């Protein structure tokens, strides 16, 4: 009974993917050759460069700042540890819109430079924000927290035992970082970077707006602008191949690490003090990402909200849309958690490849570009809806419309399928941290599977549930492609309000909705940071930290390992 959950989830995710692959192969080699001669090479090049760029920039930004706030003390370092994850709360499309407003040719920065120094500085020298490098930088400033949070959790877990020993042996901070901390954090770095890159690959809003034609944007064009489903499928398969490469690379980096079991904290040594210019330099290095990734976009939105009196003009409709957004996200969060528990448990129980593979496929929804997934989901979801309608008609004798699509149920399922992986990964990692002997003992003592789940496994999962739920909730608030296409009539969410305003060419009028998305995301992001803060007294069980790691550091480890077994 429990293995029905992974089967259903895997089927729903696999249906659009399989139809994609089938259509791609239907096109045959002629269509592929035409693509290879035109759009494919460049889209592939842009995508690879984008991913490499984000890996380098976001990776180094996340790792260095994590080290600086963990290993050292300087004025502001505690606050910075709390502030550095915040850009995660800003949707990439919002950051892109804000920086184009500020930095393109007519924006305040270049206009000011032009008045002060003339066209040479403002127009020739100044780099164009709507470009591949611009896109790399902007995405990096939004996505580095994925790496920061993962790597910092790893630093916090390792520091007491190994780092302290190295330090007593006379290891200097830089050497310590390079030779000990960084190699130890490699699995965390790989997992965080993989998440950030999947987000970058999925992104359509920011990339398209910045004029970067990635595989995702090109597939979107082929499908929706010229109705060429085969071509779109072939391009999307290229993107899927990249996803597979990415996941395999992550698994390889992770598997070579032999230290993953050493997280038991016994106490903390004091971070080293940084004073004078060193302290100031560290403060600036950690402050800059917060400034660019969070403070500037947030202040821009606040300014627009005030300048346009958006709160006074919001009206009762806005409150209704806000409530709808929260309700939908909450429902999806509950569904993800309820769905992920049996999947994670089944993966742990079943040693069989099939159970594990199902779990892996079920998690793929996160790795597929949203619009592609959603257009592929329309068929299966509406199929289920028709069945349901048939049942209702048979029972009550009344004709019905589409109940799931019409009630928002389909949208909630769509969210759940997109973000199931966050739940599965978080819970599986939490389970992986507890020895399986516990269950063996319980089974020997006669516990049946349901009792085992209720009395042993669910209590074990509790810390990870909260973290996974919060991350899913925030992702649902920001979600756009599924919301646009699966929502019932007259339903708006904060994200569609921003989309609608920018579609009218008046993005600033969506500033209040955008700001609320950011504010709603702040709570969960902050909670994650606070709960991962090192305790002065050794915790009996490192539960919150484990939950954080489970949700962010290890999101794919369990599923990945299962796939590579």
């Amino acid at each position, binding site marked *: 009974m429990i293995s029905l959950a992974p089967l259903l989830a895997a089927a729903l995710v696999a249906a659009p993917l399989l139809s994609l692959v089938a259509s791609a192969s239907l096109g045959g080699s002629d269509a592929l050759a035409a693509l290879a001669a035109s759009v494919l090479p460049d889209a592939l090049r842009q995508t690879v460069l984008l991913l490499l760029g984000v890996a380098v920039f976001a990776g180094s930004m996340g790792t260095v700042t994590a080290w600086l706030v963990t290993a050292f003390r300087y004025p502001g370092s505690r606050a910075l540890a709390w502030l550095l994850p915040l850009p995660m709360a800003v949707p990439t499309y919002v950051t892109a819109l804000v920086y184009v407003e500020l930095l393109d040719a*007519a924006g305040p920065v270049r206009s000011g430079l032009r008045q002060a120094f003339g066209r040479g500085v403002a127009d020739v020298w100044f780099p164009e924000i709507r470009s591949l490098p611009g896109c790399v930088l902007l995405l990096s400033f939004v996505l580095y927290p994925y790496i920061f949070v993962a790597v910092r959790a790893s630093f916090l877990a390792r520091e007491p035992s190994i780092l302290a020993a190295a330090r007593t042996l006379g290891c200097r901070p830089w050497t310590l970082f390079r030779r000990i901390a960084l190699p130890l954090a490699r699995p965390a770095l790989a997992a965080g970077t993989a998440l950030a890159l999947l987000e970058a690959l999925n992104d359509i809003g920011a990339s398209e707006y910045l004029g970067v034609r990635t595989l995702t944007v090109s597939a979107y*064009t082929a499908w*929706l602008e010229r109705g060429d489903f085969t071509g779109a499928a072939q391009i999307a398969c290229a993107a899927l191949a990249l996803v597979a490469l990415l996941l395999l690379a992550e698994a390889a980096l992770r598997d070579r690490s032999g230290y993953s079991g050493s997280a038991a904290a016994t106490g903390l040594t004091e971070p080293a003090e940084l004073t004078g210019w060193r302290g100031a330099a560290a403060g600036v290095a950690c402050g800059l990402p917060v400034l660019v990734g969070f403070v500037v976009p947030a202040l821009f939105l606040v300014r627009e909200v005030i300048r346009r009196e958006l709160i006074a003009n919001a009206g009762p409709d806005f409150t209704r849309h806000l409530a709808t957004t929260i309700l939908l996200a909450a429902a999806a969060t509950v569904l993800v958690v309820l769905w992920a528990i049996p999947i994670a448990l089944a993966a742990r129980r079943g040693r069989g490849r099939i159970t594990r593979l199902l779990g892996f496929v079920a998690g793929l929804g996160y790795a597929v570009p949203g619009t592609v997934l959603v257009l592929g989901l329309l068929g299966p979801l509406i199929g289920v809806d028709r069945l*349901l309608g048939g049942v209702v008609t048979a029972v009550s004798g009344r004709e019905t419309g589409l109940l799931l699509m019409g009630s928002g149920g389909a949208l909630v399922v769509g969210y759940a399928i997109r973000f199931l992986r966050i739940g599965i990964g978080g819970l599986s990692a939490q389970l992986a941290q507890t020895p399986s002997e516990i269950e063996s003992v319980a089974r020997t003592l006669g516990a049946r599977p349901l009792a085992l789940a209720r009395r042993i496994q669910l209590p074990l999962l509790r810390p990870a549930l909260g973290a996974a739920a919060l991350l899913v909730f925030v992702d649902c608030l920001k979600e756009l492609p599924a919301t646009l296409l699966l929502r019932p009539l*007259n339903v708006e969410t904060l994200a569609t309000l921003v989309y609608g305003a920018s579609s009218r060419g008046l993005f*600033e009028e969506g500033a209040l909705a955008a700001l609320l998305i950011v504010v709603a995301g702040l709570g969960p992001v902050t909670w994650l940071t606070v709960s991962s803060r090192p305790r002065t007294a050794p915790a009996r069980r490192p539960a919150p930290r484990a939950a954080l790691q489970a949700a962010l550091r290890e999101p794919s480890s369990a599923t990945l390992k299962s796939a590579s077994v």
Partner: protein
Amino acid sequence: MTPVGFSVRAAIAGLAACAAAGAARASEVVNVYTNREPGQYSATLDTFTKATGIKVNAIFSEQGLAERIAAEGDKSPADVLITVDIGRLQQAIDLGVAQPIGSEAINDAVPRNLHDAGDLWTALSMRARTIYTSKERVSDTALTYEGLADPKWKGKVCTRSFQHPYNTALTAAMVVKHGEAKTKTWLEGLKANLAKKPSGGDRDVAKDIAAGVCDIGLGNSYYIGLMTNGKNPEQKAWAAAVRPVLPSFEGGGTQVNISGAVIAKNAPNRANAVRLIEYMVSAEAQEVFADVNYEYPVRAGVAVNPLIASFGQLKPDPMKLSDVARARKRASELVDEVGFDR
């Protein structure tokens, strides 16, 4: 009965009740799927509801709605699909989600070239693909689309992505006019003239001209009105820096695109759908399209907004819109082949 069985029955009963409630309201509503942001014509929808008592339910997405109607099949709640491009209309028809409109009032109001020969779609308004020129730096007022590829504009042209429907339609019109080979050469020449990578929207073209990044660029006619009379002071300044020119094809007229509507194949409120479209082509609604949205009305006798009229007399190219729609796929492929957006 098991608890699970009970809750399933309760859920089914609940759903049935919802469905019944929905059915009871069904006679007074019309459900609109729109590729066009409904805020842009909410005034029209509001007056329609006031005049008829029919409530308008809407869902907006720039893409994918025709696919949704197709997937929903005979259970689809969609009555009307409103789009902003002839290609999108044709795509909906190719997906088989439209049915003949069958309204004398619409036949009488909308000229033949703006109304499908098979009665599957009708235009609601027209927009011209104009060339925005810098008031400061460009004095030419007689421009052709072909001329945009003239090397004299090297480094001086801005445009949004050529995969956007407005530009794909222009490219498709070029294919209809001159054939594929010549269109490809034109795209290459135009690409060589670009001042920056294609990005942003039509308003950004005006913005870039105002900032001095380029001298000329492609933009739809109505944005000038929206920017000039909108709430955004920056956008007023962009529009003020720009002189819109109604260009023509060599030996032809201006490229005109439409916003249009189809009635969904399984429309549950068909009569209301017809009433909505009839209202949207009525003189009253057409005046709103002209004066609030700054579009060209499709109904004869309704005046163009003075600001738009100041661009000059619109002479639409006589090519058939259905030919443009057919050439769209090839046009989009040509754009990719020359790597226009690269």
